[in-house]
């Protein structure tokens, strides 16, 4: 089944939240289909967590609505939460309880019948060695793992995660990325994951939405991301002026960029830099540097956010 034929699992319709005169989330429309990993990207304070809290019924919207599995979200939507796991902001656990006790408490609250679910999720999140440790003694990374374990203990079909990579070391970040990909690809789980780091989200998400100042300013498939990013060919020559004139005669517009390099945005040049090199050499202009450069993800993110009204 392709994406279009998959049913929507998470939807928002003109979802809005105002706190007094401040609009934290402004008429957001999102749809996440079954099996998708939706990366919800935004700077700190953009409205990610408020949106997530509304998706989880922790905050009531000022207008609009959120739906999960077709059911309208509200504080009393108990059916929805049976199949939903979540993690909101920094996960906190009961400090005087051990890792195992915290998970046992969640197992009972989630009505998971199998007592082995606790051991199973500890294995999955590499927490077994800390099972007898009180939660207050855990490192930030292991607290994050415990938060994720609580979100996963009932093998949910829907996962809503707010900055799940916070506090994790690089190996932990890779593990979580692999875990989410596995859940989506092999178990058909739907994942909604927020982050303020595009580079992180782009490695795992199949679809990306960018929120800024409460508004959804961009939404795209992960494959579109490459097309959206600025690409250019950077050219280093001794005489930029002569090279620019020559390239202009050949139909390529070369402008002066940083550090005295020439910049060509023409995709024919970017895709075949060897042709440009040959032309220049034959004309007696020998480049000392030729580099196909792609805008990095964070620059792209800031550019999108900037065009939507400046970084916060």
């Amino acid at each position, binding site marked *: 089944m392709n994406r279009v034929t998959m049913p929507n699992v998470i939807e928002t319709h003109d979802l809005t939240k105002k706190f007094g005169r401040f609009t934290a989330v402004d008429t957001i429309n999102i749809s996440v289909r079954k099996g998708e990993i939706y990366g919800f990207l935004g700077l700190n304070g953009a409205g990610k967590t408020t949106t997530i809290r509304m998706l989880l019924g922790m905050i009531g919207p000022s207008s609009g609505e959120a739906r999960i599995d077709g059911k309208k979200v509200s504080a009393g939507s108990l059916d929805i939460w*049976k199949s939903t796991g979540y993690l909101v902001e920094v996960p906190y656990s009961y400090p005087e309880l051990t890792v195992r006790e915290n998970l046992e408490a969640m197992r009972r609250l989630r009505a998971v019948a199998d007592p082995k679910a606790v051991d199973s999720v500890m294995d999955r999140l590499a927490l077994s060695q800390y099972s007898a440790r009180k939660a207050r003694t855990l490192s930030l990374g292991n607290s994050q793992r415990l938060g994720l374990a609580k979100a996963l203990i009932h093998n949910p079909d829907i996962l809503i995660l707010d900055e799940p990579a916070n506090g994790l070391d690089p190996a932990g970040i890779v593990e979580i990325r692999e875990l989410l990909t596995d859940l989506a690809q092999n178990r058909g789980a739907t994942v909604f994951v927020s982050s303020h780091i595009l580079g992180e989200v782009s490695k795992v998400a199949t679809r990306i939405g960018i929120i800024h100042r409460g508004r959804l300013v961009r939404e795209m498939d992960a494959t579109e991301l490459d097309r959206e990013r600025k690409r250019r060919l950077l050219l280093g020559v001794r005489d930029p002026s002569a090279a620019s004139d020559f390239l202009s005669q050949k139909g390529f517009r070369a402008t002066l960029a940083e550090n005295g390099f020439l910049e060509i945005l023409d995709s024919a040049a970017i895709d075949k830099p060897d042709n440009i090199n040959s032309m220049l050499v034959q004309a007696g202009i020998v480049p000392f540097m030729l580099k196909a450069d792609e805008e990095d993800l964070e620059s792209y993110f800031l550019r999108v956010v900037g065009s939507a009204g400046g970084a916060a």
Partner: protein
Amino acid sequence: MNGFGSALWVESLKVRRSKMLIGTVAVFAFIGIVMGLLMFVAQHPEISGRSATLSAKTSAIGKGDWPSFFGFLVQSILALGVMGFGIVTSWIFGREFSDRTVKDLLALPVSRFAIVSAKFAIGFIWNIALAATLLAAGMITGLALHVPGWSGGLVWPFLEVFTKSAILTILLCAPVALVAGVGRGYLLPVGFVILTLILTQLVGVGMPLAAQYFPWAFPALVSGAAGSALPHPGPASWTIYCATILLGFLGTVAWWRYADHV
């Protein structure tokens, strides 16, 4: 009630693992023992001879026999109970906000009504255990120190008054839970408890006729511990008292259910 049993188990686990449990039991046991010791001192004025403070305390006890000791224990549970039971309730409800664990309780297959009810239930059990601790510690100390005037016929009426006083005081913790929610932590509810304690004293002393309309004075009026100078509670007192508890309980449920949990 959806998931009440699970919620109750989880609440009991949190209480069993907390230092608050052993701490409050120790404090209530200590108070019971000190009460018994004061009875002993009242019987032996030579001990308190050099301390004016101690003399004042023991003279307030009365004759230093079992009837005055029973009265003393009832007054203790009425006054110190408000504080102790209130702190326990503040902790049960307020810690979820202070420890920022409340978000784990909001999107579960267990209803928020069940979560709140389980918290009230565990608070009631805990507070009853504290009242029993104070009673047992006081009685054992009194018996061990041979406080005079023991009579089997006095015990049952005393136990009835003590139990009634304890339960009526514990039930008044319902508004404390609401304040813990609105205040999102311990501080506001503890402040609220102190305020009710002060107001109860002020109303009892300064406006005795108004005491029957002040819910926190109600347990003392019903138990008779307030003395014959204060009016006996009538239907209006019962109505105000029950409405206060109901408002506290339903207000807490409504707050957990409908407030924005940001």
